[in-house]
């Protein structure tokens, strides 16, 4: 059972369902989607949040092994791991899901209006309705029965009061007799993913929230930006619906603040404020002035620092390092005045049209109540209590946690944890895998051969993403006139679940044998629409997409007419191709149900152990002589974990596990094959072993940067953070006798050439500072930093360090500390920004918080498994947000430092997440290829081998007997390189035949 239908719950459910388990997904509200569904865009890619989430929601909604139980809460849990009885209370919906089609007639007629919670109360809705336009499930609900006229007065008096919705519904779906249900469900494991509540800033009177109309919270601002929001995506301020010209963001509202009882850092607000400011600028017709007031800019996640740099240098967002005392009414109409302090202490008063409060994350109240009901422990802030070495395990065995209920975290971390929790549950229940699942019924495929093309076209508004720029109805009307188009319609969101039903209905109604969707990119959405076609009995390759968003509306925002004209051409192009589409067949091959894990550090060990515990054979390849990786150099964590003891235990679990074969001193020399059937050759101490495996997990770690700055390597009193830790543990004399220790952070990070944050160094400095103070309270410890990035609950240790007298001194990149060795003395000169004076510190020891850099062999391993690296040399995942441990290459997964710098607990979670993802591959017996592959016309092939050499996937071989080429359809990615290079036109790229492509070109030129 997964509790909570946000992105965490959705990901965990999908992982488990794909790995052979039946999942009950219990959601408190009427639809899944959680907070992510409310967001406009997501950082750091500025992807439309709904656009990337919606396919997952739809997949969840129609997965045969996921049962959605909405409007329901987990109220009790009895039994043992593997054999729980979960008590679920489900509130009545008053709408029959089997009959409701989500047409909205009931809501139109309903006379009772309430504040729309999904729009944060900025708009009104009816008490009957769906949570949001793309809601899954799309069954309507009477969400406020206590306000329904019939359910209150009608029932009391026995008279037919109101009942307008029932009269309006021609499907007879309104059921006033619906009752609450108490379900008892047998489940083996429970995953809690209830999400968070936003901090309510009403209690902070100085900020004027609730009194000053144009002071809004960040989540309200997301809704204001959103196409499906209260102002249809027009950036206007609440007081007068006029476009603001100047907006301020105020950070740390309800975070890092003892007044609100919330001393932790909410981890996500810095980056989301940057995102909101960027998007606001994009949404604004006039130039928009944006300012972010902050304390420490905590862009510590992968890609976030570059995002911050872009915001500063390219987008022109102003960043002011100053916490705000109060917001006053301004001199203009509904303007707001802020007095803030510049670095040098000079006060400034400035007016803004609108102020956004970056509110922090609180544990959800409902989750706290649930925790009490099912007996799991909470931490001091009422988040689920976990330990660093078991980050997704609650205090109750068999009950796992993921996402923001574990600690405040961003979406990638949430998705990772969700997969990790799924892996935990999967490990627990491996014996019953595939015993409870339902096999999806395949719709029999219609034979369309010989039929005249009957094309159905669906043009998407994508909220305002397309609709605000392209005249969608005009495109629809134009397309409807094209030959062979028998049906054409427009949808607010063609990807929503009700639209999928609609497409299927239209296929039946009009006997469509080709479908075109004109919306966004096929990269994210093609599989969804293809699956819809397949469900309607249409071969999925009879589907074509036209991208009128990325290729049109987003790039021609300021020329609506031309954009509309271009959209017509783009869709006409797709229709032209659709006429010539042919059904394609796929091939199925067996899967080798074992995994290879490359790298025996904490991430790799966890990945291997979880896969083994899930019942898969694992080979673990480590290039060093011993397992443990980077963690061998780490002795304790900020939270007090004994790393060596944990590591020892982990290694012995791995080496003693019968499903795991460990190879140390092992070098990979050659890799062939593809998902389901890899062959990796490994040189183990001179002997070459050949390992066959179906999935690969890359966990090759990272290393500490070797500094060239601050006299490192020239003066032996200048050491790295890791070396300091080693000396502290060994109790070296110079550490014991030191009177002044200086730590310098961001050495090699966050500057030209390595524009990323190494994430761990701030906390590591705090950790070592606390250890030094513990051993000798009189030692002076100075931490020179650029932004303290002790995010989440680590903030409390930063506070503890200040309490113990550690001096934190901030420096700027253009004013770096100067380290000098003059005679015997070692000094550091740095400017104190508060005093605006340079200070000189005598140092007995200087520890450099050196960057975490990618491993030396990343490039080589990347080439072996055909996966790519990002600009910094870390591995590049398939999608920053929603596929953080997958590679774009199927069957290959990543985790640990090789992905990006991270803490031990994060590496553990990520290792287990990679295991979960790999299990979704290995659980299958067979693998089906894509239909879009190359095919050899053997009659034409001369066996020249040009294609063999060109194929980037090694998918082509020469059949020696016949002297002609052959394509392995499972390896072929359909890139078409061979087809374009073949001198005798023997290579055919299916789905991209010459005549199809020519038809497209002609349609464009027409």
């Amino acid at each position, binding site marked *: 059972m997964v509790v909570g239908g946000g992105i965490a719950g959705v990901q965990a459910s999908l992982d488990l369902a794909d790995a052979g388990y039946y999942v009950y997904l219990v959601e408190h509200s009427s639809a899944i989607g959680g907070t992510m569904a409310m967001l406009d865009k997501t950082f750091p890619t500025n992807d439309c949040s709904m656009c990337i989430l919606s396919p997952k929601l739809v997949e969840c909604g129609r997965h045969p092994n996921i049962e959605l139980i909405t409007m329901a809460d987990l109220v009790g849990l009895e039994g043992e791991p593997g054999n729980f009885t979960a008590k679920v209370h489900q509130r009545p919906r008053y709408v029959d899901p089997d009959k409701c089609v989500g047409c909205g007639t009931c809501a139109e007629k309903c006379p009772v209006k309430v504040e729309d919670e999904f729009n944060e109360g900025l708009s009104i809705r009816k008490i009957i309705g769906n949570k949001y336009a793309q809601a899954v499930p799309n069954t309507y609900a009477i969400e406020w029965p206590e306000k329904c006229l019939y359910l209150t007065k009608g029932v009391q008096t026995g008279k037919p009061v109101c009942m307008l919705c029932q009269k309006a519904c021609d499907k007879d779906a309104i059921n006033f007799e619906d009752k609450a249900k108490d379900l008892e469900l047998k489940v083996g494991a429970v995953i809690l993913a209830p999400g968070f509540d936003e901090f309510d800033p009403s209690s902070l009177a100085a900020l004027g929230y609730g009194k000053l109309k144009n002071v809004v919270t960040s989540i309200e601002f997301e809704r204001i930006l959103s196409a499906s929001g209260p102002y249809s995506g027009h950036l206007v301020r609440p007081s007068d619906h006029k476009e603001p010209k100047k907006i301020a963001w105020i950070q740390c509202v309800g975070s890092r603040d003892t007044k609100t009882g919330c001393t932790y850092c909410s981890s996500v607000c810095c980056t989301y404020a940057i995102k909101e400011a960027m998007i606001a600028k994009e949404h604004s017709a006039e130039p928009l002035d944006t300012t972010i007031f902050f304390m420490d800019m905590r862009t510590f996640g992968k890609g976030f620092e570059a995002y911050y740099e872009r915001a500063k240098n390219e987008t022109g967002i102003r960043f002011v390092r100053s916490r705000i005392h109060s917001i006053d009414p301004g001199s203009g109409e509904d303007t707001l005045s802020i007095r803030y302090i510049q670095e040098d202490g000079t006060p400034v008063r400035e007016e803004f049209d609108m102020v956004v409060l970056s509110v922090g994350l609180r544990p959800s109240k409902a989750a706290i109540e649930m925790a009490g009901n099912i007996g799991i422990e909470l931490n001091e802030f009422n988040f689920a209590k976990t330990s660093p070495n078991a980050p997704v395990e609650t205090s109750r065995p068999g009950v796992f946690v993921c996402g923001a209920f574990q600690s405040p975290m961003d979406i990638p971390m949430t998705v990772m944890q969700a997969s990790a929790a799924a892996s935990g549950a999967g490990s627990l229940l491996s014996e019953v895998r595939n015993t409870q699942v339902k096999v999806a019924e395949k719709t029999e495929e219609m034979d369309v051969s010989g039929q005249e093309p009957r094309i159905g076209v669906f043009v998407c508004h994508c909220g305002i993403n397309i609709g605000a720029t392209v005249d969608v109805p005009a495109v629809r009307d134009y397309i409807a006139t094209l030959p062979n188009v028998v049906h054409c319609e427009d949808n607010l969101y063609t990807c929503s679940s009700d639209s999928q039903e609609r497409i299927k209905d239209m296929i039946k109604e009009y006997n469509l044998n080709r479908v075109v969707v004109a919306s966004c990119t096929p990269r994210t959405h093609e599989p969804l629409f293809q699956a819809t076609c397949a469900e309607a009995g249409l071969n999925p390759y009879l589907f074509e997409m036209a991208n009128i968003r990325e290729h049109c509306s987003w790039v021609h925002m300021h020329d609506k007419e031309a954009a509309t004209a271009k959209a017509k051409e783009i869709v006409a192009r797709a229709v032209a191709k659709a006429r010539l589409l042919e059904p394609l067949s796929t091939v199925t091959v067996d899967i080798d149900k074992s995994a290879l894990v490359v790298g025996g550090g904490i991430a790799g060990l966890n990945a291997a152990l979880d896969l083994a515990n899930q019942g898969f054979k694992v080979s673990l390849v480590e290039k060093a002589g011993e397992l443990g990786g980077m963690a061998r150099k780490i002795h304790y964590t900020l939270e007090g974990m004994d790393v060596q003891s944990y590591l020892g235990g982990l290694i012995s679990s791995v080496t003693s596990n019968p499903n795991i074969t460990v190879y140390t001193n092992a070098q990979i020399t050659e890799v062939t094959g593809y998902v389901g059937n890899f062959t990796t050759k490994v040189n183990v101490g001179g002997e070459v072993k050949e390992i066959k495996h179906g999935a690969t997990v890359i966990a090759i770690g990272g290393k500490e940067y070797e500094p060239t700055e601050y006299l490192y390597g020239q003066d032996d009193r200048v050491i790295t953070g890791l070396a300091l830790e080693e000396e502290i543990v060994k109790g070296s004399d110079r550490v014991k006798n030191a009177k002044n220790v200086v730590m310098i952070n961001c050495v090699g990070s966050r500057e030209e050439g390595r524009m990323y944050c190494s994430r761990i160094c701030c906390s590591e400095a705090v950790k070592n500072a606390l250890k030094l103070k513990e051993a000798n309270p009189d030692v002076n410890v100075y931490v020179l930093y650029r932004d303290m990035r002790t995010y989440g609950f680590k903030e409390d240790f930063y506070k503890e360090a200040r309490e113990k007298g550690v*001096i934190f001194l901030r420096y700027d990149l253009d004013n770096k500390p100067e380290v000098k060795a003059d005679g015997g003395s070692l000094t550091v000169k740095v400017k104190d920004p508060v005093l605006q004076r340079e*200070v000189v510190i005598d140092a007995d020891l200087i520890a450099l918080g050196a960057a975490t850099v990618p491993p030396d062999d990343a490039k080589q391993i990347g080439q072996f498994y055909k996966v790519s690296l990002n600009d910094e040399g870390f591995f590049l995942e398939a999608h920053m947000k929603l596929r953080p441990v997958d590679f774009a290459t199927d069957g290959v997964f990543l985790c640990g430092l090789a992905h990006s710098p991270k803490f031990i607990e994060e590496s553990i979670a990520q290792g287990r997440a990679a295991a979960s993802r790999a299990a979704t591959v290995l659980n299958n017996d067979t693998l089906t290829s894509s239909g879009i592959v190359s095919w050899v016309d053997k009659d034409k092939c001369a066996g020249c081998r040009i294609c063999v050499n060109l194929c980037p996937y090694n998918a082509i071989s020469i059949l020696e007997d016949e002297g002609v080429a052959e394509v392995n359809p499972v390896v072929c990615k359909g890139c078409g390189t061979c087809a374009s290079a073949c001198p005798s036109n023997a290579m055919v790229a299916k789905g991209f035949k010459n005549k199809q492509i020519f038809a497209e070109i002609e349609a464009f030129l027409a």
Partner: protein
Amino acid sequence: MEALALNKVADPNFRAEVMEKIVPQATKMDFNYCLSCGTCTAGCVFGDVHDHSDPRQFMRKILLGLKDEVLNDPFVWVCTACGRCTMECPMGINMANVVRCIRGKFGLTAPGTLQQVANTHLETGNQMGVPVEEFIDTVEWMEEEAQDDYEDPDFKVPVDQKGAEILFIPHPREVKYYPEEIKIWSRIFNVAGISWTLSSKAFDVTNFGLFNGRDDEATKIFKFTDDAVKELGVKRVVTTECGHGYWAFKFGAQHWIKADYPIQHMLEFLAELIREGKIKVDKSKNKEVVTLHDPCNVVRKAGVVDEPRYILNQVCENFVEMWPNGPYNFCCGGGGGALAMGNEIKKYRMKKGKMKADQIRATGAELCCAPCHNCFDQLNDINKEFDLGLNIVHVYQLVEKALVVE
């Protein structure tokens, strides 16, 4: 400026010293948590009008151990300890307590006459050195006048009345310079028919031990009242409209002398009398446009926010707020003992006063209430300096004017 050689000039024990000496001890860790975030300095609006008003920088010097600089920093005396910075400090650092500690525990002497006033109080039992006989004579004189004025031969201004319920603590200047005030508040109490008394041994609400930071002196000054409470057996103490004196009682009752009897400000008491119907008031007696200056010690620190508003809405027809107000008000500029710090501090005081003058002027008020003697004097100075042309009044004066006697 030459670079600061931190290890040579900083006193590594300074922080520990502050922690050891600060009152209350329960908060001794707080200032160490400073994030240098700037909220305090953003909240201290006086940075707009004069130097030495950067609490963040002052705190930074303490954290770096720059003891000499801290002790010589004009901030120590320019700060009025109004507490506006503390309101929003994310680490909850009480700047006023830190400033008190530096003022009082490191051998500093306050500028101007501040220490002399404290000394007089310690020696004579009141800060103005009013002899007991003069006090009694004045009270009796006013009692007689009141009997005539109000045509009430039974009108009493009770002194040293054992067993009375309430001990009222006035300001000695009400005795020495404004004796008419005695009639005014006595009349309210008598109309309300409550059991009250003055004390001949404790008729000074002030406590400059709060300003000079010397807790030993503050304790002794508190003791005059504490002794009187015990001697007379009263149930509670009500103070006249004095801000710091009242706050010194509230603060001191926790940290100097454990006093478990209720201590109320005149505002709380008057609100209670009106709410409980003990006095009846007619707002048409005060037709002028009235605004309220919120004294920091009463409103921000002690949380007496709603009471003055309740009272003024009951006794005036035209009460208008200034902005900002309530707990977020601006200090009048005369807080923290500034009025007794002589010309050295006066220039800062008047610069601060300009902000208050602008605030008051924006309301268009004809009367400005100052339920604190300290604010009252500062506002009178402001009134003259910036030619506001309005009258500064106590709240009880308006209440007395609005009294309906049947």
